[in-house]
């Protein structure tokens, strides 16, 4: 159940990748053939590789932005998205494989390798469900949010269907049949659809209001191929089809193909294409939706404040080290492959003994591609923490040795994170190996930031107000917010200083800045001023990525289920007892 409202904010955005599925067929008039599907993502080349590797599609010769799956083209372009395909008018696309159990086992083993595969489990936890009378089915999403159904339908192997959400499926299928041809039929006598050659167009009743329009979602549109576009357009006009773009040859297209755009039922954007001579393809195809240089206009709440509401995660940022490796280039970014490898290393080593069953990245829950950012620290510009003070060096030199878990006397020896108290005002925002969600809800003058990990909620007031007095200090402090343009600036005061981030003292001053830099990107920057520890202030940043379409924060009842605390202390006492016994024996 999704209750997101889609706030489409004109066409300005940071580059992401969009794919279009173009399904090509021989055309008889009034019998269009599916021609392509378009999907949004962040690197066309990466997407081509993914569809080649996992869905047996083939790269279209000479192109780094399209694959052909059977007769169906999937084209990718860099553009912006406002969410995955699920819940939009094109919910998902389907592929048929000869042995679904084997396929899912293969995909499950992929984990975060490369761009990763996100598995969707049924409510009983299974990956595959056998529908009596139909076939076995399973669901995954690609790394960019396109939902994919995998089926085991011996009749057709390869690209199998396009599945629509519709408020009136019968009317929708009739419309496709009437406008684009195909054959009204029933898949195994169980699912009504329209059949275009081997490919099914299916539709499911959508009960959650209206499905989202496809434009701007990861399946941006589907395309059907016709022999003579002008003739087809004339026929469509007689059927009162809603044209969004009249037939034309796009400028700077890869060929002289002619295309039009029409709007289907429930807001499905449909390209109708007359193939052309493709001899001019080397004129680098630049996706016409990738006007990425334009300024992003931050959406507003109904009461006029910048709108940060939604569910965000720090999964993409997981693995970004705080400091840049010594010797690494000034602004060096990682390649996507390096970033994926880094995130996997990060999730492997972050907590001792946490096997892959614990990690959201390896479980396939993570939709976001790993960040290619080299390091979090942006100031000093060398990406390194500033020099520490002499006083702090002395403090460290004289500090008592840290007590290892197996020697823990009381919970205090294990630290505030293990005790489920807090990761501290700096640490609480940092990425974690699981439960990385962050939910923001706003009311006039107030912003609640809820972190899933441990479960901690801060209410940041942007109204000028009297803060806590000197006698009141807390773990996360008193958050004073203000708007500087579209940036939320938060000064954290009245910290109790009982947690430390890399040595920070009780007098640390923390300032945080949140800026929405795209529909899916919330830039988070933090500045630490602590002259007792560091000789100059330092700042770090990373992005939270919006994941409204499928992520929901769960209640992280950390303390309530802290069996680790009982087990650790009990093990430490067992070690104590054994050592006492050995000591007695030696005496």
């Amino acid at each position, binding site marked *: 159940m999704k209750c997101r409202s889609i706030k489409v904010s004109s066409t300005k955005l940071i580059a992401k990748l969009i794919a279009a599925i173009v399904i090509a067929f021989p055309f008889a008039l009034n019998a269009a053939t599916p021609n392509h599907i378009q999907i949004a993502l962040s690197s066309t080349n990466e997407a081509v590789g993914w569809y080649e590797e996992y869905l047996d599609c083939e790269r279209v010769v000479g192109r780094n932005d399209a694959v052909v799956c059977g007769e169906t083209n999937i084209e990718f372009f860099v553009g912006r998205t406002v969410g995955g395909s699920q819940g939009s008018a094109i919910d998902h696309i389907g592929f048929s494989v000869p042995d679904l159990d084997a396929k899912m086992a293969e995909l499950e083993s992929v984990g975060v390798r490369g761009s990763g595969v996100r598995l969707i489990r049924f409510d009983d936890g299974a990956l595959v469900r056998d529908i009596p009378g139909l076939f076995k089915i399973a669901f995954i999403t690609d790394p960019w949010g396109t939902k994919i159904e995998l089926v085991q339908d011996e009749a057709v192997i390869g690209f199998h269907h396009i599945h629509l959400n519709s408020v009136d499926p019968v009317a929708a299928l009739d419309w496709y049949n009437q406008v684009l041809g195909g054959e009204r039929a029933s898949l195994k006598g169980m699912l009504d659809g329209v059949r275009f050659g081997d490919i099914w167009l299916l539709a499911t009743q959508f009960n959650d209001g209206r499905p989202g329009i496809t434009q701007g979602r990861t399946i941006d549109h589907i395309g059907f191929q016709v022999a003579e576009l002008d003739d087809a357009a004339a026929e469509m006009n007689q059927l009162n089809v809603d044209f969004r773009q009249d037939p034309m040859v796009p400028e700077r297209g890869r060929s002289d193909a002619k295309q039009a755009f029409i709007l289907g039922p429930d807001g499905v954007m449909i390209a109708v294409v007359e193939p052309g001579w493709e001899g001019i393809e080397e004129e680098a195809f630049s996706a016409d939706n990738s006007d990425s240089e334009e300024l992003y206009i931050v959406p507003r709440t109904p009461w006029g404040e910048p709108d940060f509401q939604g569910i965000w995660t720090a999964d993409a940022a997981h693995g970004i080290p705080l400091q840049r490796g010594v010797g690494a280039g000034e602004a060096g970014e990682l390649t996507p492959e390096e970033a994926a490898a880094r995130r996997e290393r990060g999730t492997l080593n972050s907590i001792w003994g946490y096997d892959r069953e614990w990690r959201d990245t390896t479980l396939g829950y993570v939709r976001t591609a790993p960040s290619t950012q080299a390091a979090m620290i942006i100031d000093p510009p060398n990406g390194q923490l500033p020099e520490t003070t002499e006083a702090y060096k002395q403090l460290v030199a004289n500090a008592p040795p840290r007590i290892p878990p197996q020697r823990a006397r009381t919970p205090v020896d294990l630290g505030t994170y293990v005790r489920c108290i807090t990761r501290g005002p700096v640490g609480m925002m940092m990425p974690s190996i699981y439960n990385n969600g962050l939910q923001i809800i706003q009311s006039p003058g107030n912003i609640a930031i809820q972190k899933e990990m441990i479960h901690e*909620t801060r209410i940041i007031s942007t109204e000028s107000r009297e803060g806590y007095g000197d006698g009141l200090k807390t773990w996360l402090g008193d958050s004073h917010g203000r708007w500087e343009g579209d940036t939320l600036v938060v000064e954290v005061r009245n910290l109790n200083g009982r947690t430390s981030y890399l040595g920070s003292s009780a007098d640390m001053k923390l300032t945080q800045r949140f800026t929405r830099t795209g529909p899916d990107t919330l830039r988070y920057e933090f500045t630490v001023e602590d002259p007792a520890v560091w000789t100059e202030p330092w700042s770090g940043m990373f992005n939270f990525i919006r994941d409204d379409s499928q992520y929901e*924060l769960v209640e992280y009842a950390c303390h309530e289920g802290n069996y680790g605390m009982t087990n650790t202390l009990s093990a430490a006492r067992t070690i104590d007892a054994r050592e006492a016994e050995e000591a007695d024996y030696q005496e």
Partner: protein
Amino acid sequence: MIIRLKPTVFLPFKAFLAASLLSISSIAQEIGNYEPEQAWDGNPDINGVWQAMGTAHWDLQDHEASAGLPEMGAIGAVPPGQGVVVGGEIPYQDWAIEQKQANWDSRPTGDPETKCYLPGVPRATYLPYPFQILQGTDKMMIVYGFAEANRTIHMNVENPEPAPLDTWMGRSHGHWEGNTLVVDARGFTGEAWFDRAGNFASSSLIVTERYTPISADALLYEATIEDPTVFTRPWQIRMPLYRRLEPNARVIEYKCVEFSEEILYGHLMKREESED
């Protein structure tokens, strides 16, 4: 004779209906013609910091003063208070009366509040601490100070899916009925209690809450409790919630974990040996 048996069997339910009708009409009188301030969407504006008064957190029902932990003196004692249960009675099934008594007996260590566990619904509402309501654009959030409890209220979702998993604070769906925010909360673990007296429910608990502004600074809070595992019929609590009027009123994080560790882990701790 046979016919007479049926009304007898149904009497408790009818009595409940009558009681609820009664309460609705008296609420109507109380609300009178109060027209609340409107939020951006035209619904009542109930944003703000609120708090219950009274002693419901000690015991939902009428209760006399009674002893607490002796070492705490009068501070630890239970103050007397008037109940908030409509009709006064909590209609426990027979087995549950015994369980409630067992909870009462074990309360110094058995009460989830003692252990700093998430308080659940409706208990979070009338813990003696302020909480804040934020009316967002398609969700609301209630943030409580104790144990940093928090609820997201998903607004206007038709045919909501069942809660994906049971949680202490449950899953909440809300909508407006006139000036009343109606919240359906369910999907609970069944481990939370209702008060320090050991009143309780199971994981089949469904709480239907109604928040109705009755003045600029007060909400009427009503919660209907349904749990066929524990009770013989639905029942209801009612109390006002008051706006905290201090200009700097805030919900202050109350991270209580450290105060529960002695109870939870004391038997596993190593005490520093004294030198003498």
